[in-house]
């Protein structure tokens, strides 16, 4: 006992960092996500123009790499003469807000349901499993479109609707992780010493399932971002003149045969953001819980 109390405390954080830095996916994903977050935060500082300012005399200017392009509008202008780069930069804010907002709401719902089901089992588990089955059998895009059409499209509505629809994976994963942890000796020990249920849940269960929670939260963020873009593309998501990337693709669609960059640019931005978030999520899972792959 005496010798072990003198020994150095085990450092868990250090090897975790080392593994993260050696994991290509995590490094690439984290770099791109960090860049997008920075761009979104500093949007007013780096956007060359006002994203809402219309200049009808300068409509559909092509990007700078085109022969007709100019450095004044690096990515050109849209059908209303608004600077495309500025709209792209402000659009990052919308995608991130949607992703974070929807993941927070669905994460809260799904975690409560999943942890309760896993910890209490029995009837609670039956009810939660049933709710998950019901939720999975409803077509997400259709229900989301219908609700947005009825309630009216706005950023808040889209975040709420996606948040209320995407909790299934949180619930499934939290349930199985909690089931695993519940059978551990330290949980039985905590119960035996007389810890309250809340305390067992908060201090024994939660810290041990939080890694999985983070992984699902990242992946669901990407899911929400892609769904918002699809909803906005169909005209039933975020409404104009907000510069949502999905909306930009939708607005450029009519002219895509003549000016393909109108849909290429916001599409690539969307693809890169979702890809990097997924890389980050998959990577974190590889590092913290390699046994949970697939």
């Amino acid at each position, binding site marked *: 006992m005496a010798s072990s109390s003198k020994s150095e405390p085990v450092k868990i954080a250090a090897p975790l960092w080392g593994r993260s830095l050696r994991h290509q996916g995590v490094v690439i994903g984290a770099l791109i996500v960090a860049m997008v977050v920075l761009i979104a935060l500093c949007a007013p500082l780096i956007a060359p123009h006002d994203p809402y300012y219309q200049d009808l005399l300068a409509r559909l200017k092509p990007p700078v790499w085109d022969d007709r392009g100019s450095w004044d509008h690096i990515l050109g202008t849209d059908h209303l003469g608004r600077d495309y780069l500025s709209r792209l930069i402000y659009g990052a804010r919308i995608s991130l807000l949607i992703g974070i907002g929807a993941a927070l709401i669905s994460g809260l719902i799904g975690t409560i349901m999943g942890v309760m089901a896993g910890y209490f089992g029995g009837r609670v588990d039956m009810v939660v499993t049933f709710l998950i089955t*019901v939720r999975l*059998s*409803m*077509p997400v895009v*259709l229900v989301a479109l*219908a609700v947005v059409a009825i*309630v009216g499209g706005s950023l808040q509505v889209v975040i709420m609707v996606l948040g209320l629809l995407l909790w299934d994976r949180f619930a499934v994963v939290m349930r199985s992780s909690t089931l695993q942890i519940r059978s551990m000796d330290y949980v039985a020990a905590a119960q035996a010493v007389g810890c309250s249920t809340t305390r067992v849940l908060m201090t024994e269960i939660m810290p041990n399932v939080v890694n999985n929670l983070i992984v699902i939260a990242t992946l669901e963020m990407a899911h929400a971002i892609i769904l918002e873009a699809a909803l906005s593309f169909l005209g039933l998501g975020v409404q104009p003149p907000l510069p949502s990337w999905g909306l930009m693709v939708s607005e450029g669609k009519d002219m*895509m045969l003549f000016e393909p960059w109108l849909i290429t640019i916001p599409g690539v931005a969307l693809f890169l953001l*979702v890809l990097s978030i997924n890389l980050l999520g998959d990577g974190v899972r590889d590092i913290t819980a390699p046994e949970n792959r697939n």
Partner: protein
Amino acid sequence: MLYYSLKRFALALLVALTVSLISFSLLYISSDPAIAMAGETATDADIEAIRQLYGFDRPILVQYFDWLQRALAGDLGQSYYFRTNVSALIAERLPTTMTLGVTAILFAITLAVPLGVAAAIRPNSLIDRIALFLSVMGQALPSFWFALMLIVLLSVNLRLLPTSGSDTWLHLVMPTVVLGYYAAPAIMRLTRTGMLEVLSTDYIRTARAKGLRPPVVLFKHALRNAIIPVVSLAAVQFGFMLGGSIVVETIFALHGAGFLAWESITRNDLPTVQGLILVFSLFYIVLTFFADLINAWLDPRIRIN
């Protein structure tokens, strides 16, 4: 097996009932359906007349059971826009969506299963890395954008395929690819892990040791066992696809149920939307029910637990 089937059937029934309740109440979270039906120029008296004619003045639960009773008999009510029966409308549009769904899931399987098997035979090889790369890329590609890029590339620049409509099988190529690619990564990954797991079992080692040819070991002994979970995943993905066809059908102007859903939503035609949500959900419930039965039949361990 009979006990398991009955239990599973009761659950499916309960899920279907809950879904029907949710899609029914969708009509009421909006506003007064009588006002929606009467249109903008209607007077108060008109609205009142419609309310009594369609029974909107009765308690909601009574209306729900009335609606459910008729839905069970195949009557999903009248479309606000077409003024015809919703069931007939959906039945007319469903074959296009089904065809698209079947071709898309077949496309996903023929792409994903061989890749998954190849990746599992040689883990961490070049082909494994390519498969992983493709699946990561595929999951990040927004389907509506992918569809537009395919149109620009294949229809406009190369003039290979028609952009919209549903006249010939050529019209189905792009929608199939767009709907199918999204399901492929999940199927690929599951095939790969399943194969990896099976290939490390004792009975595969025995099969190899007794001198069976590698293809026989691989396909007859390994793939057969690894494919079980893939079958149920494919069923689930097929169910999701029908819901996801709304984006694809809208872009390619395929007049299926997904396109009808989008049209009805933009026209505020709630009975049709309600009917479509119910039909899509029921389809998913039936699919997963049969997938579970097949699984239980193939793997007795599932039945007992």
